[in-house]
């Protein structure tokens, strides 16, 4: 396990040797090269954003403050700090870390939802995401309608997604006829299972999951794991953020521990989880623990 908190050099996950065959693409600032064995390359990525810390985020409050010569109270959040990472095709990467560590922001930036403040992300392959439970489900519409909307939002054509709806319903273990019932009649488990089924049905090259495996019972979890194993066997890449540490240990072949926006450690999932658990219990970082 390597301690990388103070060193933002490029981290290559996995044990394989880097490919020397390069793919070329034109970026905003010129040509970009990426080894053909990589699914994701993150280069010196930092993400900052401002949030309004006023309790009342209203126009009325802003006008009242302006009339008193005060500004709206803003805070700059440095969510991701100088992260550099290579993720080869066929990896299953787990990301652990406390709330506010930057895990979800990192996932959103890989998905293209949150563009970098500095640095660059190169993604080689089609992405499917499950970063927020529900995929924009409209509770008044049927499961079928919502699946079509979710698929269209993900960039599929209507024909492509319609041909998969029955398969999605079957994978999500929906009872007979429920696919055409309004989503508001679904249990929370059914809701989560459909969302997961939609994301894996898109045959993505790269699957990004943020706390998505909490949906469903033990049987569905087993089914989810099997489906993800199938994806990995097809050399597809999966990145999982989860607080369920057993999931990270069981499913992933590499793990990253993020702490306050940086990659604190990376390596074999069991060891990373063990160190992270020590941190949760004692509240000390690996460098401190080694001194104990």
């Amino acid at each position, binding site marked *: 396990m390597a301690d990388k908190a103070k060193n933002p050099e490029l981290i290559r996950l996995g044990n394989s040797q880097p490919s020397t065959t390069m793919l070329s693409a034109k970026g905003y600032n010129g040509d970009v090269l990426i080894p053909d064995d990589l699914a994701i390359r993150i280069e010196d990525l930092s993400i900052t954003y401002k949030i*309004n810390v006023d309790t009342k985020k209203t*126009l009325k409050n802003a006008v009242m403050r302006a009339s008193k010569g005060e500004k709206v109270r803003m805070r700059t959040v440095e969510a991701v700090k100088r992260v550099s990472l290579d993720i080869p095709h066929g990896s299953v990467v787990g990301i652990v870390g406390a709330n506010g560590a930057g895990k979800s922001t990192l996932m959103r930036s890989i998905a293209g939802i949150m563009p970098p403040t500095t640095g660059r992300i190169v993604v080689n392959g089609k992405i499917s995401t499950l970063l927020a439970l529900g995929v924009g489900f409209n509770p008044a519409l049927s499961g079928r309608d919502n699946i079509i909307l979710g698929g269209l939002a993900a960039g599929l054509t209507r024909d492509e997604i319609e041909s998969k709806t029955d398969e999605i319903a079957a994978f999500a273990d929906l009872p007979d006829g429920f696919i055409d019932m309004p989503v508001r009649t679904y249990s929370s488990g059914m809701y989560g299972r459909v969302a997961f089924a939609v994301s894996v049905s898109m045959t993505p090259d790269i699957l990004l999951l943020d706390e998505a495996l909490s949906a469903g019972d033990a049987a569905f979890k087993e089914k989810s794991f099997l489906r993800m194993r199938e994806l990995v066997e097809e050399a597809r890449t999966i990145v999982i953020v989860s607080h369920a540490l057993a999931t990270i240990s069981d499913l992933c072949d590499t793990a990253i521990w993020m702490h306050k926006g940086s990659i604190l450690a990376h390596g074999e999932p069991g060891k990373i989880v063990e160190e992270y658990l020590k941190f949760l219990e004692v509240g000390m970082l690996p460098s401190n623990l080694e001194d104990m």
Partner: protein
Amino acid sequence: MELDFDPMSTTGSKQPGKVGESAPLIQIFEPHKAQTPPLIPYFKEFWERRAFALELARFADKAEYLESKLGKAWLILNPLFLSMVYFLLVTVLRGGANKNTGLTTLAHILIGIFMFYFAQNIISDGAQSITAGGRLILNQAFPRALLPFSSSVRAFGQFWPTIPTYFAVVLIGKIFYPKTQIPLANLNYLWAPFIIAALAITAFGLSLIFAVMNVYFRDTSKLLTYTTRIWLYGSPVLWKPEMLHGWHRIFISINPLGPALAATSHVWIEGVRPSNSELIGMSVWIVLAMAIGTYFFTSRERDFAVRI
């Protein structure tokens, strides 16, 4: 293997290589220059994803009227009843109307209300489209302007059935009051699609501004409810543009919807072409609303995922 790729988008558009169907998709995400994403790839992806916006509009309509007994009939009944109420108010305030001018007034209010409500729906639904699309925004990368665009498509779907309604009311009115001067159709009606398009584009530009404001200040949409009511009273809908004289006519020009609504009255009620000042006014407001709206929206789009 070295592949040659087209220019990339920083917003997530996919650029297939040129070596066959199995070529990989490479996406590059880099910092935005001048706060906005590169606009050509942005609009290219916007166009490629238009099916999503159209379906979203259709499904939003379906969800809204799913449990209503009168269903989509409300789309016509609502502005129709409102026009009747305003017609009664206007004629009562004026001390009554004779049977010929009464029909003209009714027709003017009717088409004015239909047009104004079309613009209002684009603006107010567009203003809420980003905050209402929370999970989609948190989960998927796509040009966010598709959400207010979807609201505009939906508003058009709700608007167009009101046009035959207008003709039906005028036709019935002309049967009972044949001396009325309202034309049912003439060559100047060919201006109508351009006026409708100008109104829609201006309203869409404004909806982009209000959509961003609603992300930052959640009471914007509530404020819009009252603002649009005052906006209606200040627009040539309940009164005719000719009622303003001299410098007072500036109130039509400074109103983003004013020139289009005044032109509506001229074409539909008087059967004449829009005045040059109305055509210039419409053009200026289209450019201003779209330029300011597009810049304001795209430059703030990055923040949506952390402010929803």
